């Protein structure tokens, strides 16, 4: 007689081992390693459900295995088994039973859900332009093809008109791709988009929320400890969807205050000759889309792009990533990652797919090698490099 497939169970067991080993690997976007109270509350809701699902899985597969072992036709007899047409009580049981289980799950889900959609923010003190401001920590998050903008309004969002995302009111700080937050505080987010739908997601800090044009969706994040937390756009947004990433840098409140102060100032006029030539190139070419505060923020009426915005470069060097969070601005040793930056300036569409001809994404600027050197020199004057541990933490590879 043929043995019923014992390899089947062996495969299942080895699968379970592989599964566990897979989860243990280093994954910066892992959804099961929460790093803040919000994501932890999601995790503590999910984990028991995975357990319940696992139990049901074992029961169903156990029953299937028994059927394979015990109720296989062994051709020993031609007789029919007992002709059972059903069992009303059993069937009512396995209709009502799961319904009760689901009802219990629903209660916990709704508690967690409404908790996640409440806000529990307390103002924090931030010194802005020398005066201490009581900031209800809320950051406006704007998605566009294929990068993220973060806007800080320290006077709060009351009276700030966010209805036209392509013409947002001036903010205290405008940065891109890397959002800086203080640890230990719940940060409110107002998420919107300038073109298509994107989705903002820092798995270690919270689930995701779509960025929908003409809508401002409330969301929130909070980090326990300083660190760099990775994210990825998760709503398909066209050509470079996979290359639209973001990071959240959480700092101790004191470090955050220092970061705010450094970000508040306009760009310092460059001193070197090459950098000064670079600024001329910037004003002639790059300034059509990009803004550097103190250079063209007063004159710029928005970018010559569908989204009407390009990353604000005033403090570019204080970030460790650019182009939608896909390139490292620094080498692991802390020096400028010059080859990548030059390649980007030389022919951006070759580095990251875009529809530059459709005014979506950075075009090839046709700069000469000399101009590229000058622009790099100029960009290096824009803002101070972040602390080395942040540079180190953003190196994924």
């Amino acid at each position: 007689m043929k043995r019923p497939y014992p390899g089947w169970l062996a495969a299942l067991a080895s699968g379970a081992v592989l599964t566990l080993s897979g989860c243990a690997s280093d994954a910066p976007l892992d959804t099961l390693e929460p790093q803040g109270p919000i994501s932890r509350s999601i995790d503590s809701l999910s984990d028991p459900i995975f357990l319940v699902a696992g139990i049901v899985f074992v029961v169903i597969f156990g029953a299937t295995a028994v059927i394979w072992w015990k109720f296989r036709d062994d051709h020993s007899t031609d007789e029919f088994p007992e002709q059972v047409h059903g069992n009303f009580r059993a069937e009512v049981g396995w209709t009502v039973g799961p319904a009760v289980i689901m009802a219990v799950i629903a209660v916990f889900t709704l508690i967690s859900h409404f908790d996640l959609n409440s806000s529990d923010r307390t103002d924090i003190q931030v010194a802005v332009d020398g005066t201490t401001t009581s900031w209800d920590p809320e950051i406006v998050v704007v998605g566009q093809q294929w990068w993220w903008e973060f806007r800080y309004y320290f006077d709060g969002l009351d009276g700030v008109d966010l209805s036209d995302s392509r013409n947002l009111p001036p903010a205290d700080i405008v940065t891109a791709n890397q959002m800086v937050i203080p640890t230990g505080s719940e940060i409110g987010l107002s998420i919107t988009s300038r073109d298509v739908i994107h989705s903002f997601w820092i798995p270690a800090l919270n689930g995701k929320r779509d960025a929908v044009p003409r809508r401002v969706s409330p969301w929130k994040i909070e980090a326990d400890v300083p660190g760099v937390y990775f994210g990825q756009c998760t709503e398909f947004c066209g050509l470079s969807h996979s290359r639209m990433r973001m990071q959240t840098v959480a700092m101790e409140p004191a470090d955050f205050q220092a970061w705010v102060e450094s970000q508040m100032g306009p760009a310092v006029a460059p001193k070197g000759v090459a950098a000064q030539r670079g600024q001329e190139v910037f004003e002639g070419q790059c300034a059509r889309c990009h803004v550097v505060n103190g250079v063209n923020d007063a004159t710029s009426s928005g970018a010559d792009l569908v989204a009407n915005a390009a990353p604000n470069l005033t403090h570019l060097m204080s970030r460790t990533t650019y182009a939608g969070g896909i390139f490292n601005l620094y080498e692991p040793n802390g020096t400028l990652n010059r080859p990548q930056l030059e390649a980007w300036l030389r022919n951006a569409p070759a580095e990251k797919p875009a529809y530059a001809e459709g005014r979506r994404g950075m075009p090839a600027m046709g700069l000469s090698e000399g101009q590229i050197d000058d622009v790099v020199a100029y960009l290096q004057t824009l803002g101070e490099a972040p602390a080395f541990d942040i540079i180190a933490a953003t190196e994924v590879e």
Partner: protein
Amino acid sequence: MTDTMELEAPARPLGAYTRPKANTGWRDWVTTIDHKKIGILYGAAAMVFFVIGGIEALLIRLQLATPDGTVLGADTYNRVFTMHGVTMVFLVIMPLAAAFANYLLPLQVGARDVAFPRLNALSFWIFLAGALFLNMSWILGDAPDGGWFAYAPNTGVVFSPGKGMDFYAIGLQITGIASLVSAMNLIVTVLNMRAPGMTLFKMPVFTWMILVVQFLLLFAIPVITVALFLLMFDRNFGSNFFNPEMGADPLLWQHLFWIFGHPEVYILILPSFGIISEVIPTFSRKPLFGYPFMVFSGIAIGFMGWGVWAHHMFVSGIGPISVAAFSVSTMFIAVPTGVKILNWLATMWGGRVRFNTPMLFASGVVSMFTIGGLSGVTHSLAPADTQQTDTYYIVAHFHYVIFGGALLGIFAGFYFWWPKVFGHLLSDKLGKWNFWLMLVGFNMTFGPMHILGLQGMSRRIDSYSPGFGFEFWNMFATIGAFIIALGVLAFIVNVVMSARRARHEPPVGPDPWDARSLEWFTPNPTPVHNFDDDIQVEALDEFWHRKYGEDQNGQVVRVASAEEVCQDGSATDTHLPSPSYWPVVLAAGLPFVGLGLMYTLWLCVPGAVLILMAIYGWSFEPVDDPDGPHGHHNDHGSDEPADDGASGTTPAEEAPVV
């Protein structure tokens, strides 16, 4: 076109042409209105698209096998994953279900054909026209790139300036016509044409599930058609239904899409549930456990399927109250689905289960769909879904539902009903290779996607960087995908080899599986007229009950052999509707209209001419050809399919009043 002039033609002065007569060769396949041939056409066409969609899947897996993949590039990748989804949903699973429904539903209710045989042919040809139209986009170099879900405004002209999304919007409107026409046809067939004695609750579960699906189609297809129609106007005629620049709310598209899209999930899965509800009792040699529960849970799924659509939108910002309501409604749709799983297990439990290939696939559905259902429960919890949605966890989930649930069930159906359709069995040995390769490959491909998703791998990305922990499982999944391809290859080899072998072997005989339902009263393969005589139905599983009875001890005893019960297919005086040219002509006009809307309106002219000509010809087609091989006018029962030729269901004798 007309190779014979009709002597009777003057009797129908407005009949433009005689009806075609061919009952062999390609002319027969093009003009046939026989539900069985149309079923085969649906199946064959869908399997071609299955291979195309499968190649697209392999390209996706090759691109993602290694980090920073360069096999396709971002632009091509986006088109390939869009067309993979569109193809597998609309051009593979739906028409495969239609193949089974067309072939089997009239047989299972003991009818001669569907209610409107010409409309049935029209459904198929319109489906094929729409499918070819969609895939024409590859040849014209502009395949859709906005995803099968086509979220606005990414599909507007600004963000998708090519013609790709026009192919999508118009192509799916065309295939939608096919689904709608077919839905009405099959509903009328089930409600009006059942054999004497077959009450609704003596109908096989497959017929029940197909009936539920047709109602879902009837109400869901109009919704997506409206959405596609609006999208077409936005893209081609400057309207602004989905343009946020002009004040539109992009979530309108999502609501319209998912009000269709969620019932669509049940449109895909319920036919498979029906198939395995036939297979499992047959091979367990027991009646289906809890037939009423199975029927009512199917109906319940059909109803509840309308109340859960916004669970696709938990993170889109629809507001916490809406999310809470849809979260809870989604949880409870697990209940009727769970009932089905447990009833199938209870059917097998205590049986004497023969694990032939159809049964292997059917029990594969029960296990694999369970996994898909359980992961589905985990994201009915809205907070958990904010982490899971749009990651590979979802990709894993719906492939367990659609591949593990729907497609494996369809393969169960192939192996089960192959002798009914083609008169010979598929090889059980190759079938087992087919099953195990597909099952192992399937789990290798989609099992690890649960892990990838929970590790944060986003959906619809054409590449990922090294260092995120995605490398190993992606490579693993790609290997699995090629094992699935081997499984499909085993099926194709099986089809070819079994057909060759069958030439030298005696026919399969009337009842190879000791089956239960009405279709097995007819010989294998089914003769063109289906049943020699009407069947008086006394019980659910009528065929089985004619073979077996019970003795005093309640033991099952055979009372008749299958040969005695089966009809021999010898009837010759059966009236059958004649073939028609017009369905294929009408359908051929639609792609021209579509291309005309996209490129130059002049192309609409030949399309409109074809359509109008076909409608005219159709309307004035002589009702029947009394001398042709199909036309033998006698023996009209009230339950007999009436040709829809002249005026709905007017019997052929009554000349249409024009």
